[in-house]
């Protein structure tokens, strides 16, 4: 069955969603990402949804789950490129996707995640209180 491809870009994984997803495809993506993050020890995950013209509550919850799962594996996630009409619809429904970082595009998403990763490294090296 079809799968959404996951690209590796250095320490980032990039997922570009360009098809209308049915629930099973979304679940498979979640599993695939978990495996890839673990296999590559990726520190950042970028999910590009600039081609998605609809995100419903199931898909929104999936993004939240992915971010949570990634964090457990020490990776940060950014959801990038959400279309205005999708953002307004989610806001109208009452979805705020707390726990998921967002950025306007892939470039800004990478900058955001790098900054977060820098922060973490600084914390790790900070002298014990």
């Amino acid at each position, binding site marked *: 069955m079809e799968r959404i491809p996951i690209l590796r870009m250095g320490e980032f994984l990039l997922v570009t969603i360009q098809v209308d997803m049915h629930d*099973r495809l979304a679940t498979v993506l979640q599993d695939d990402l978990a495996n890839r993050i673990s296999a590559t020890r990726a520190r950042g995950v970028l999910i590009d949804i600039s081609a998605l*013209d*609809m995100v419903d509550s199931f898909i*929104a*919850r999936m993004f939240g789950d992915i971010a949570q799962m990634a964090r457990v594996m020490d990776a940060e996630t950014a959801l990038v490129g959400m279309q205005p009409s999708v953002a307004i*619809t989610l806001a109208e*429904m*009452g*979805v705020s996707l707390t726990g998921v970082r967002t950025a306007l595009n892939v470039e800004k998403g990478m900058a955001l995640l790098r900054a977060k990763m820098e922060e973490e490294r600084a914390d790790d090296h900070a002298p014990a209180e």
Partner: protein
Amino acid sequence: MITPRRSETLPVREASDILLVRQFVRECATELGFSVFDQTKLVTAASELGRNTLIHGGGGTMRLETFVENDRRGLRLTFEDKGPGIPDIEQAMSDGFTTKGGLGLGLGGSKRLVDEFEVVSRVGEGTRVTATRWT
């Protein structure tokens, strides 16, 4: 004077049907002249309600109707199933999807995306949800 223009029924029996539902609603909404913002609201509501019909209703149908009333156009979606029904509709509406798994019906959310919304359900008999949006 409201003139009905179109009426079509689609099956909602498997996951792939939801994709067809989304596509069809998008097409019809575009044809009727809804803005892209309103189109997205309709498609999202259809996806939510379609999923409910599939997962909680055990499968059913979606009827799509279009109307012309003077200068505005309307699109109505009716999701129907013969499933277990919703015991407490008010509760289901407030759950939205903050409830994971279980109900998480997305009913409350969908309601906010349309102009008219109605739920009729009887335990053991089935559920019918009607959602309408006007330009």
